[in-house]
């Protein structure tokens, strides 16, 4: 094969990667600037300045970023684990059982594809008010509405349907009940799908913005994106250095999660297509 075009492709790829990274690199650079430096003309693009650490410290001390990150991490992990568990159970029920009302229940779940949480924020917050969750237990309000979704159910249903039925027969011969079958046969075969699902759900929960705002939680109970938004306080002047630092800090956990589960994420979706 001709060697030379490969360098061209490498070059093109590097250019594209840098281009994609441009906004983020810019944010990283600005997050090191002080309040005044962020307003200089021409903008200070290189080398990075020294204020990153002090900006981050302001975020963690003055704006309780530490608590916000902890809250968001907890909420995201609870939803990931809970949603996966419920979706797998539902998938198990739909694929491996025949029972009266199966299609009604399936339609019931299907219909919720058309009921996005984003449109239901106001009645949801009234419901949460009736349950007194925002005052007594904000993290329940942040997690419970997301513990089930049609997408998760369909994902696992599809995946289970692709698994050969012979495995079930073999398990039944061994005398395994549904739960043992789920845990010891299906689960080991599902890590890719679980990984992919986990990444999507984690990132989706990490990005939650409108819902925590609607709930009017006290500042220590809020989630990280609200914290980032609050850093845009234009009291005296927008401190762009602080703001970019907030964006950078807020993006590290999902990036880490993504990189860790990358392989599962990439291969999990190959299994999503109908075979």
């Amino acid at each position, binding site marked *: 094969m001709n060697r030379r075009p490969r360098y061209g492709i490498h070059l093109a790829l590097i250019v594209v990667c840098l281009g994609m990274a441009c906004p983020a690199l810019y944010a990283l650079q600005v997050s090191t600037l002080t309040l005044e430096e962020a307003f200089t003309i021409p903008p200070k693009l290189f080398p990075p300045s020294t204020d990153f650490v002090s900006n981050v410290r302001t975020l963690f001390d003055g704006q309780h970023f530490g608590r916000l990150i902890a809250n968001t991490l907890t909420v995201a992990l609870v939803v990931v684990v809970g949603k996966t568990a419920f979706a797998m159970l*539902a998938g198990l029920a739909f694929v491996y059982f025949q029972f009266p009302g199966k299609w009604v229940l399936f339609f019931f*779940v299907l219909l919720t594809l058309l009921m996005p949480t984003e449109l239901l*924020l106001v*009645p949801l917050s009234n419901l949460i008010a009736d349950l007194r969750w925002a005052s007594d237990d904000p993290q*329940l309000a942040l997690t419970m*509405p997301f513990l089930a979704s049609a997408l998760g159910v369909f994902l696992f249903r599809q995946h289970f349907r692709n698994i050969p039925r012979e495995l079930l027969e073999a398990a039944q011969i061994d005398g395994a009940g549904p739960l043992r079958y789920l845990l010891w046969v299906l689960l080991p075969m599902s890590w890719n799908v679980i990984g992919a699902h986990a990444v999507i759900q984690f990132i989706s929960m990490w990005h939650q913005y409108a819902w925590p705002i609607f709930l009017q939680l006290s500042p220590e109970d809020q989630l990280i994106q609200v914290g*980032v*938004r609050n850093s845009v306080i234009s009291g005296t002047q927008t401190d762009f250095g602080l703001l970019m630092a907030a964006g950078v800090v807020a993006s590290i956990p999902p990036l880490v999660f993504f990189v860790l589960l*990358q392989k599962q994420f990439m291969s999990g979706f190959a299994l999503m297509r109908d075979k």
Partner: protein
Amino acid sequence: MDDDSRLPISPQAAQRVLLGAALGFLLVFFVPRLDGLAALWDLLRDAIAGLPGFVVDVIDYYRAAPGEQVAYSALVGAIFGAVTTALVAGVFDPARFAHGRTWLAVLAGAGAGALGAQILMFPAQHCTYASDIGGAQFRVGLVVTALGALALLVPVWTLLRGRPGARVQHVAGHFKRSPLPYVFLVPTVIVLAVFLYYPAAQIMLVSLRRKIFPLPQERFACMQNYVDLASDAVYRNSFASTLYITLFVVLFSLAIALAIAVLASQKVKWAGVYRTLLVWPYAISPVVTGVIFLSMFREGGAGLLNWALGSTLGINPGWLTDKDLAPWVIVAASVWNLLGFNVLFYIAGLQNIPTDLLEAASLDGAGRVRRFWRITFPLLSPFTFFLLVTNVTYSFYGIYGVVDTLTPQGGPRFGPGGESGATNVLIFKLYKDAFDTGAPAGLGAAQAVVLFLMVATFTVLQFRFLERRVTYEG
């Protein structure tokens, strides 16, 4: 798990550990919060206990309701049901539809239509069939009746159609009959019913009322909110802005992502590294994207873009203050946000294109471009289809974080009296109307219902038409 040999413990043990940790984690989270969960349990119990009362209310209502209003709604529903069933029966295999007895199907359709119409007309108290109702509201009422009828007609059609091959029982592929499937479905059903169905019903009810936050009073207004929306110039502009922005976001993000994915799917060293480097922006949230672009598109020489433009072209556009430019900043931010996700899926799709097909085509003399459009692109259609749905969903809902950060007032104004905002997209206006002090909350709810219908229609249409054209491999 892959690296079996490198783990210090066996995969089964690792799985046990993981399961134990997951279970432990959930317990540690929920056990201290049992009080909160108890509140939910109480709510469910009260709801179930209230069911007989609800049934009595329905009966009382129908006893007391003006007869002709109910009759009209049933009539309209029946006509709609009969006509649509006749059409559907004609379109699908008439022989199999209700075993060829079309008149029976039409009758069933009429009945389902009349009954279904009541689903939506009952909460509206049949108000659009009152004698003194305005023309506009009456027309809206007709649409609502039809929608209610549809809700019952679709399952009836599915039943009448019969399901080929559904009778074949994979007896060998199922567990014995037991109550277990219900148990497994309980958590999902409860969460969906309480946190999706119930609020959805609430929002439909609120859309029938005039309500202003924070006033405690509210007034039943029949379909007035919907009529007002139709005649509201601000809403129409919001609609237009949303479609405009969505179109470009989807177009650009899909096209650019496809190009990048093709580039990244070439067989080079470190392809995996490149792929990671292209996909990670997916982890950046809309809010953070907005914040970064806010800094980049600042006016004056301190913003990155205006500095670049100023020093090269000598222009200094007010990106966020010009009504023609502001939507483009939103588009740019959204496209960047979506690129990672789209690239990922396109790469996955490209990886599954069988190389033998492409080689055969190149042997036949087809150039790269032709190979791409004739073979690769059609084979990518399931992915394009999936990405289309997710990108549109993002442009309708997720874009709120971007808009609220870049243009918290809804963008530069236009229209007489400056009433419309250039980036006042539907979801943004909806939240403002539903949430702001003094804003009409009922109108916000009506907007939510309309938006829901729009996206639902779009999704259903996509499923129906695109899926027919989508080619699957093998």
